[in-house]
């Protein structure tokens, strides 16, 4: 910072402070803790609790001021220990306890409660209050995950402020007034926010409790490690807490670079899946068409046998669930030992791997830095990467960045976006090409000339452009997004990218070469010799779709599923079915019984999040530690150990038998990790960034073309919801019920035009197939399109996709009409 520091005096000691800092923060930095309840460093101050009142003198004599509201100024004299301040601190605590139930012995917060701590440190010791306390109904559920005990509440406005200011879900608020003020939901509107768990974490008393943790433990029985949550690619930092060898709570850790302490409820509560109903804890082998429990040795032997065949007839799908070290071990096993290049960590629902690996990366900090422009290209962040959504929402709300949204339908960020356009499915490439060529005089893809010009002006100016890149329409070929990226780089060659692939450690998997044509370190396969590797594949492999095609044609003998469930996730269900029928051996390395693993011939039980040590590479290319807190369930093993075992059964060695050895080899083999300071990865809250300089040139195909979109009916958008039937949600008992039944979302004008009535079901046809599906009017949906999320209960959206077609078209009509 170029600003010169100001000098302030705190309790007689003169210290330097940053201009603009609040007194409470400056004092904290100088080592003086001022007690507080309502102040939270990631939210705007409100000055409500009056706990942080101190005497501040700016030349007119000392006056009582809330230190959370007053910015420092040069020469300011602050006294946090005067008799007057002590009188006020005691007084405020006495007031706070006047109506507090003092039920600490049965309160989950007891032992880690700021009210308790402050009462002991700064309180009067006893109360003069002899009247009856205020009473409310003891905890009322305000959502499926959160309970509210209004008697304990001290009305600090943290949860309500978080819901409104940070999450943008103002579903809880103060009601009534004066001493009857209480936090509550609006009638018939539960606090169904994706971020509700944060309110529990920041509650300074035991008023908000989370259903999964309630009455499970006392804080002093918990031990914790700091880790990185692997449920999506944001890589939010967490503290993992366990008691009696069971993870029972996940708390957000305030990492400046990544999540600021916030978590989505999926990141916070999906630890439950580890002990879910469908958890696999022992090896299984198919015998007489039934999966039976086997010994590790027998299962590994069977699996190794299936990997001995011709490399070109062996493939691997998945790997995004794994830690970076596991991914490296599996890449080395498949590419260096087995010799196949048929590997893909994406399931046909992502973006072209060379593009993801080759684009210049941005960090979240760069994306949210003041003065920038952020292009949301085909992604609905709230549904796909919710914690990143919070960061960008914050930047846009404070008018630090201009958001430009270009996606098939509007999202929760549209309101905050400077401009939001919805090109017709399939046209994003030609729209971006037109912008790059400066053609904004006529509408393209249904986007008006004015909007085109606004977008062009924002993207082509001098400001840093960061693109958050996603694929939020599975019914549209991924190449249109690639076309758009290619054109965009023509418009702004300095644009940086955050690849918004949502699946866990998918960026790590790609970096480790679990994608065809690449080897660990983001290097191309051809003509490369890798340090520590005896050989590399001698052919370019196929991606998931390619593998499934050859498998369906009977040209693949062995398919390894590395924590992948293609039967549910791959967009073309029929193709997967056919492939599974014609493959001789399916090996599932998985933690769960899924549609795919239950059809495997060998199941090797894998250790999951919370049970393994390793590293995570998030969408910025930030390496951070994943740490074990409990022992693996049953006989489950870490994925890298399974790879080591298989290699030895194939008659060779991978070259490492401990995680340390593995990390050491990884650091020397993968060039992009060569300069990583592993000590920093383990110790710093913001991890360490890996090197993204590539030795090869990213190429795009020739000019973008739009598909022929003329025709009857509506263009299909298949997108995602946070709460779906994905394994991690479905296996978490508290989250499983949150997925809403599938409903096709239509623009209100289309609902009217099609005469569908107010609500209910509609007849939906794709080709000759006809379905009856619930519909809702949704103003976020572009007229002329129909949106439906994948993996929701009740209807499989993949049934509506025209496979092999660039876009899908469906017809919707009222039930009974022809």
């Amino acid at each position: 910072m170029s600003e010169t520091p100001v000098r302030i005096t705190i309790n007689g000691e003169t210290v330097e402070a940053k201009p603009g800092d609040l007194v409470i923060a400056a004092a904290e930095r100088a080592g003086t803790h001022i007690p507080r309840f309502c102040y939270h460093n990631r939210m705007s101050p409100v000055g409500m609790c009056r706990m942080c009142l101190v005497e501040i003198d700016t030349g007119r004599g000392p006056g009582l001021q809330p230190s959370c509201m007053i910015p420092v100024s040069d020469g300011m004299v602050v006294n946090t220990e005067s008799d007057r301040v002590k009188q006020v601190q005691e007084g405020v605590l006495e007031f706070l306890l006047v109506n507090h139930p003092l039920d600490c012995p049965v309160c989950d917060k007891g032992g880690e409660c700021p009210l308790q701590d402050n009462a002991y440190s700064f309180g009067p010791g006893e109360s003069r209050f002899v009247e009856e306390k205020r009473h409310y109904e003891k905890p009322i559920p305000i959502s499926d995950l959160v309970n509210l005990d209004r008697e304990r509440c001290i009305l600090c406005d943290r949860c309500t402020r978080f819901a409104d200011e940070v999450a943008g879900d103002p579903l809880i608020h103060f009601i009534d007034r004066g001493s009857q003020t209480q936090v509550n939901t609006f009638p018939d509107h539960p606090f169904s926010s994706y971020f509700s768990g944060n309110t529990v974490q920041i509650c300074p008393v035991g008023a908000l409790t989370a259903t999964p943790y309630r009455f499970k433990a006392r804080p002093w029985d918990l031990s914790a490690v700091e880790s990185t949550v692997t449920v999506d690619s944001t890589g939010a930092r967490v503290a993992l807490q366990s008691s009696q060898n069971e993870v029972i709570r996940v708390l957000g850790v305030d990492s400046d670079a990544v999540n600021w302490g916030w978590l989505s409820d999926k990141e916070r509560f999906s630890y439950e899946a580890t002990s879910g109903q469908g958890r696999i804890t022992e090896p299984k082998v198919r015998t007489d068409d039934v999966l039976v429990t086997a010994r590790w040795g027998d299962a590994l032997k069977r699996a190794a046998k299936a990997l001995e065949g011709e490399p070109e007839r062996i493939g691997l799908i998945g790997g995004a669930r794994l830690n970076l070290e596991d991914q490296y071990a599996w890449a080395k096993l498949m590419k260096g030992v087995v010799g196949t290049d048929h590997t893909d960590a994406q399931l046909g629902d992502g973006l072209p791997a060379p593009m993801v690996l080759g684009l210049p990366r941005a960090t979240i900090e760069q994306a949210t830095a003041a003065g920038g422009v952020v292009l949301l290209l085909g992604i609905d962040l709230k549904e796909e990467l919710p914690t990143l959504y919070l960061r960008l929402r914050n930047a846009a709300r404070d008018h630090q960045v201009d958001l430009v949204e270009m996606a098939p339908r509007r999202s929760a960020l549209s309101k905050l976006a400077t401009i939001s356009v919805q090109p017709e499915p399939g046209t994003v490439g030609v729209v971006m090409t037109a912008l790059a060529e400066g053609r904004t005089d006529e509408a393209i893809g249904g986007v008006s000339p004015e909007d085109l010009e606004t977008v062009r002006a924002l993207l082509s100016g001098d400001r840093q452009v960061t693109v958050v890149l996603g694929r939020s329409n599975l019914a549209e070929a991924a190449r249109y997004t690639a076309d758009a990226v290619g054109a965009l780089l023509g418009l702004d060659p300095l644009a940086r990218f955050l690849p918004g692939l949502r699946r866990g450690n998918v960026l790590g998997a790609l970096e480790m070469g679990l994608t065809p044509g690449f080897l660990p370190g983001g290097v191309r396969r051809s003509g490369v010799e890798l340090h520590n590797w005896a050989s590399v594949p001698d052919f370019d492999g196929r991606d998931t779709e390619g593998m499934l095609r050859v498998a369906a044609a009977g040209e693949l003998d062995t398919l390894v599923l590395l924590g992948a469930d293609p039967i549910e996730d791959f967009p073309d269900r029929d193709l997967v079915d056919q492939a599974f029928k014609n493959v001789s051996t399916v090996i599932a390395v998985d933690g769960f019984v899924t549609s795919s693993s239950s059809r495997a011939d060998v199941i090797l039980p894998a250790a999951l999040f919370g049970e393994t040590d390793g590293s995570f590479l998030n969408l910025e290319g930030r390496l951070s530690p994943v740490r074990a807190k409990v022992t693996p369930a049953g006989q489950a093993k870490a994925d890298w150990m399974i790879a080591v075992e298989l290699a030895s059964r194939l008659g060779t060695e991978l070259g490492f038998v401990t995680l340390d050895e593995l990390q050491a080899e990884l650091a020397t083999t993968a060039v992009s990790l060569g300069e990583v300071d592993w000590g920093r990865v383990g110790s710093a809250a913001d991890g360490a960034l890996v090197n993204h300089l590539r030795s090869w040139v990213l190429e795009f195909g020739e000019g973008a073309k739009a598909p022929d979109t003329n025709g009857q009916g509506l263009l299909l958008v298949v997108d995602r919801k946070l709460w779906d039937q994905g394994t991690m949600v479905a296996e978490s008992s508290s989250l499983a019920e949150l997925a809403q039944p599938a409903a096709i979302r239509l623009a209100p004008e289309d609902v009217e035009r099609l005469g569908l009535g107010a609500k209910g079901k509609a007849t939906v046809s794709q080709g000759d197939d006809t379905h009856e599906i619930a519909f809702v009017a949704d103003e976020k949906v572009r007229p002329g399109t129909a949106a439906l999320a994948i993996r929701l209960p009740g209807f499989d959206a993949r049934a509506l996709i025209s496979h092999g077609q660039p876009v899908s078209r469906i017809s919707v009509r009222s039930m009974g009409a022809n």
Partner: protein
Amino acid sequence: MTLGGTTSPYAAGFVANDTPRIVTSRFDLEDGYTLDRYLATGGYEGLRSALDREPGEVHGEVRDATVLGRGGAGFPAGVKWGFMPPEVWPRYLVVNGDESEPGTYKDRLLMERDPHQLIEGCLIASYAVGLSQCFLYIRGEMALAQERVATALNEAYGAGYIGKNILGTDFSLDIILHWGAGAYVVGEETALIESLEGNRGMPRLKPPYFPAAIGLYGKPTIVNNVETLANLPWIANNGSAAYRAIGTEKSPGTRMVAVSGHVKRPGVYEIVNGITTFRQLLFDDEYCGGMRPGRELKAFVPGGGSAPWFGVDQLDLPFEASEIGPQGSMLGSGAIMVMDDTADIPKAAYSLTRFYAHESCGKCVPCREGGTWLERILHRVVNGQGTSRDLQVLMEVGGTICPGNFPHAASERLGIEAASFPYQMTTICFVGPSAFAPIHSAMTLFPEDFAALVADNDDLAEANGDHGFATNTAVPVELKGVSVR
């Protein structure tokens, strides 16, 4: 025009006198609230006169006149306007018609009896500071005022006094009427702005102390009281010099006061600023006419329910802020509540404290929890169940809301010196301290009234053990005084 001391049949509560009539000149007229009558009595002439001048000149005229804000703080309106950052638009004028201070009812009469005068004041103010949107916030409970102002606005729009290109000039103004939802604290200007924006009526944190720079919707905003604006047509017509010729150097012009309580003729009066004394107001025949027969003055509240009380020792003080402050109180909103020797002082204090505790918005802790606690202790005391320890706790709890010297009046009888206004406080706004003000005043000026209430209870409390209170809430009132020994 002057009816000299007779009660007007048309403005309930208004009593005319010989004081210059700046804002109450139409109060005697049955149809003073109609546009026709307003125009027939010189209405909208002030606007015409202002529009003939440059806005800066009009602003200067108001600044020179030194119109002290009539909402309570007494800050000069012209100076307040000057806090608006130049060249920032849009900017807003918000009229504070949320008059809810206990004892205050002058603005209600201004809106009921002469709504066009207020509208004309809005127009002049808006023209002077160059804004085109004005919000008129009227307290929710004032049905007649709302109806009259709404009707007047329609008339004024129809006649071209509001709207686009007013009276053929470039000046345009829209006035938006907004009704409150019944919260006392919304009379506080930042809470009023929150309420206007559709949020809960809760005060904003200070600084900034004035919303002039960051106000409604984050834009420069002036908040003026109804009576303040009602002065402007007269000033535009007669000039600042004529205004300053009335009253004193520091407090020019007149002001409206609302008297209630134990006087012969309670009502609203227009008095001369800085000159008229409380003694004149309460005892002169042209004003309140003295106490009820055979009664003596015991105490009075000089400036609305939240002001510390005065006793007979302060009767000769004039309506001049710089003289009232050092004597431990404030002029506030001009509401005077009078208590004679029949008044039950603890009950009067309880009544006021209960109001402020009930009206706490709940935002900050000392007011939300402390106010209610004070009310509950005092409730016990006035019901004869308190102890001397309760009296001590009352003062201690109040001391947490307002640490340091709480202002109080000098009392010759008790031999105490005044502690001057204002005070330190732990709350965001004045509602919390207001709950303590009546308790502090009553207990300071009339300690014997409280001592009498708790006299018999201390022994009982001692017998009850270490709780230190006479009874608990489960014990019926009848047990008072029963010996348990």
